[in-house]
């Protein structure tokens, strides 16, 4: 049913085709975080790949940055309704990360963990085949702390809470384990094109 007197401000046809349902385009890069911004230093930074509690591989900042780097340009979609087009990222793809670790994926599910205690779950299939990376640069520069620097997960085809800021590890889990927001009312998968914002969507 139409809302009385509402006609709206239409995006262009090009923009409309790129906007998932319920989203609007922004030129800004809003900051959304559940808590304060942690100040993560690169000299104490580390990233660990785990299977359950067992470490599979670990990198310090220098070793991590020696891995092959990939650049992508993607549209991103925040569950708070904004979308930002053509964001440019550089980092280590999860394909290259797994190859560098020399491991076959032991399960089909992962939890990303962050320095501030945040976590979020992403199925393996959504991280591999060029779909995701651990990003270390945004728009040609190191990622600032408020946007998740020095490194954040980037899974641009899912709502952006899946792209964990201040990421410090990926953990294979036996089942699809809900993370921080998934335990607090947000959707277990988070596909913007199916508008999977909240539990049950």
């Amino acid at each position, binding site marked *: *049913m*139409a809302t009385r007197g509402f006609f709206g401000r239409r995006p262009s046809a090009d923009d409309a085709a790129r906007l998932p349902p*319920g989203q609007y385009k922004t030129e*800004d890069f*809003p900051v959304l975080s*559940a808590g304060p911004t942690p100040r993560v230093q690169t000299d104490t930074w580390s990233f660990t790949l785990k299977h359950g509690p067992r470490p599979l591989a670990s990198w310090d900042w220098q070793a991590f940055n020696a891995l092959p780097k990939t650049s992508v340009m993607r549209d991103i979609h925040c569950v708070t309704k904004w979308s930002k087009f053509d964001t440019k990222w550089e980092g280590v793809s999860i394909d290259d990360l797994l190859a560098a670790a020399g491991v076959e994926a032991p399960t089909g599910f992962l939890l990303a963990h962050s320095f501030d205690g945040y976590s979020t779950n992403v199925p393996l299939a959504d991280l591999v085949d060029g779909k995701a990376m651990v990003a270390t640069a945004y728009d040609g520069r190191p990622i600032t702390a408020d946007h998740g620097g020095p490194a954040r997960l980037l899974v641009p085809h899912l709502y952006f809470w899946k792209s964990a800021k201040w990421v410090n590890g990926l953990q294979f889990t036996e089942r699809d384990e809900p993370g921080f927001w998934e335990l*607090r*009312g947000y959707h277990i998968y988070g596909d913007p094109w199916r508008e999977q914002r909240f539990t049950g969507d």
Partner: protein
Amino acid sequence: MPPTRIAWQQATVTAIVPQTPTVKSYILTPSTPFDFVAGQHVDVRLTAPDGYQAERSYSIGSAPGGDTIELVIERLEDGEVSLFFHEVVEVGDAVEIRGPIGGHFNWSPSDAGPILLVGGGSGVVPLMSMLRRRAAASPDTPFALVYSARRWDEVIFRDEVMQRAREEDHFTLALTLTREASPVPDVRSGRIDRMMLADTLMVFGDQLPVLTFVCGATAFVEVATMLLIDLGVPFESIRTERYGGAEAKILGPDVAVPDA
């Protein structure tokens, strides 16, 4: 059992209350009343005759337990939904909402206290829900609100927060104006700074707040949380909500606290 979807529902605007020259409260009566926790928000959806829809999220300013919810909407000159509310919506109109949403920036009486609230501009809205909840359900829980607004006539909920500070035990208010001198003695002038936060923390004596809720423009939240951590408030006990995008551009410079 699959989880239940939070359904869209019609909500009728039953009152419109001016808060400041650019901010109004919209009192909505949902067709299906729902319970919520102080600090949660709802999504609002508007539909044009051709089916085009716009969605936005708004914090709930009212306390849980009533048949209505209060949304506080600031007039943003480039705001598609905000301008619609300010220029078109009248009492009796219906909009679609769904909620409640958000499981982190929440306070319940079972969380106990002391609780520190820090708000900039319209960042006070979810904090107001917590203050009202406290007064109704847990008046012995110590609360303090550090609140900055630009000018005297731009202080959202001004009369109510000042009245609560006068009348309610265990509630301390530090209200400050950033763009003009305060016309009354118990309201400060200047931006929230380290001293104001330190003074406010002292009302809790030896105790640190069990939870601190900080809400406002991004720059405001970044600096306020940095100062709080520097003052010994544990990182893990601080919960934040930041306004991004256009709102941050409008509110940012005016409510940001300066570097210590």
